């Protein structure tokens, strides 16, 4: 590609970025106008409101869920807002979603999960050919909105390397899925404490034949942990994709750690029952369905397939 052409494209993207909503994580501002008060003023006083009980006597509410294509919610988890009410702003979310739709029309974002092998090509002005490609195992997928990010892990020169990519960054040229599969866990950070064989994938790995709506298999591999110390207390976390650890220093150590892990303040048995905690940490289904109804409508204009380079 021409350097001048790349420059031109980058400047174009940067200009459009000026319109992009640069929404960073805001702190909770108590002096801000709340959405509840805004909504009160938006509704017209001309609409006579029925009394509370009369509302319930009217016809039953039929919640028609919008028709959502297969696995759409799992393929695109980034459209739901942050469940913390201090960060919620309906107008900002709407604007952010519009920017996400615009990005989606220009780049094809394939379906993948934590445990799939991806290759991401970035625009890099200091690299040969002005692009840099990194292939790795996806160990994390998170954050909402334009901050949606993934972490890819691989081994380069006998050194474990993790690269974090924000999927809606305009620097990303291409996202390829080399192997589409799932793992037994949602986050694979324990690979940092495993032998490097479990994280190594050759950079020139050939991609699997991936077609639309193909069934996604679960890789039931059980990984072995290195001897302690670890980066996190894996003995306290219920990991499915890890073999039970046997490299304890002594039986005394094992029993002590087990006792500490079974303390009530560590186990937190009450959190399983805590309905309000679950409510505060999730988006209610009515709202998520409403949001996805809008997203699905716009998804018809998105780039569905990679354009083959002629």
């Amino acid at each position: 590609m021409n350097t001048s052409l790349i420059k031109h494209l980058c400047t174009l993207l940067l200009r459009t970025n000026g319109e992009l909503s640069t929404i960073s994580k805001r702190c909770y501002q108590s002096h801000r106008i709340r959405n509840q008060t805004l909504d009160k003023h938006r509704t017209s006083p001309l609409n006579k409101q029925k009394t509370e009980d009369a509302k319930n006597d009217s016809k039953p509410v039929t919640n028609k869920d919008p028709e959502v294509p297969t696995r759409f919610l799992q393929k695109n988890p980034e459209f739901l807002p942050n469940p913390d009410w201090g960060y919620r702003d309906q107008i900002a979310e709407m604007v952010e979603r519009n920017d996400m739709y615009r990005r989606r029309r220009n780049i094809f974002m394939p379906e993948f999960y934590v445990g799939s092998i991806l290759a991401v090509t970035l625009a890099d002005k200091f690299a040969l050919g002005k692009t840099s490609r990194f292939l790795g195992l996806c160990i994390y997928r998170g954050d909402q909105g334009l901050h949606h990010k993934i972490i890819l892990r691989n081994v380069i020169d006998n050194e474990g390397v993790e690269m974090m990519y924000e999927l809606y960054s305009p620097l990303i040229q291409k996202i390829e899925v080399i192997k589409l599969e799932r793992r037994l866990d949602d986050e694979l950070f324990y690979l940092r404490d495993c032998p490097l064989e479990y994280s190594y994938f050759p950079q020139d790995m050939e991609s699997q034949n991936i077609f639309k709506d193909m069934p996604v298999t679960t890789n039931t591999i059980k990984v072995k942990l290195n001897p302690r110390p670890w980066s996190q207390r894996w003995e306290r976390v219920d990991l499915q994709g890890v073999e039970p650890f046997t490299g304890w220093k002594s039986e005394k150590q094992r029993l002590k750690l087990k006792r500490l892990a079974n303390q009530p303040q560590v186990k937190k048995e009450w959190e399983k029952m805590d309905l309000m905690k679950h409510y505060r940490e999730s988006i209610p289904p009515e709202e998520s369905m409403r949001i996805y109804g809008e997203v699905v409508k716009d998804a018809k204009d998105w780039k569905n397939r990679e354009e083959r380079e002629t």
Partner: protein
Amino acid sequence: MLKFSVKRRPRKLKGVWTGCGSGPSERIKYLRHWVGKLIRDERIEGREDRMNETRGYAEQLISLAIQNGENHRPTMEMATKWFKEKEMTYKLFKVLVPRYENYQTSFTRIQRLPIEYPGNPYYNVVLELKGNPYPSIFPEQRDKAGLLNNILIEAAKKDFYNEHRQSQVVRDSMERDIVGLERDTLQVRMDKSGSGKVENVKTGSTDGTDVDKL
């Protein structure tokens, strides 16, 4: 979705039962007790902060039961964990779910109770499920139009009004007879000198009556 305002952070409920421990585990035990009581009695009283917390949990339970139904295993397990008595899970799925299925508002109502001086440093509150069989907290205003006093007063009002209107009609008709004209045909025309004269709009003739002298 809960259809009433909920705080951003949960309340700690300090000193739930004096002498019985504190912390998140005790808090959940306390709330379990009161949620069960609410489902059983359908109307309970207590401290405002405690009742506000129980309200959230009770409504979440009911809304989950409505969404998923009793055949959904996780909701059934959740309900059995929350209620000490087995009958309450039965009541939740068989009685409360059909009652609240088509509700567009919240399922509970909360109301502050009056303070009896000197009283406590916190508000006492009534928390009730809507559609309960008890008489409502706010007494319904009876229709008093049927009382004899009110009937007589209404009749007297009507009579007075009719009389007043009749007299006005008579006055109008008398005016017409005297003047021999309809209303709105007379007009006051101001002279250059400043005095006004009553003028007939249609014919243009004046009566000679001076407005100043009227």
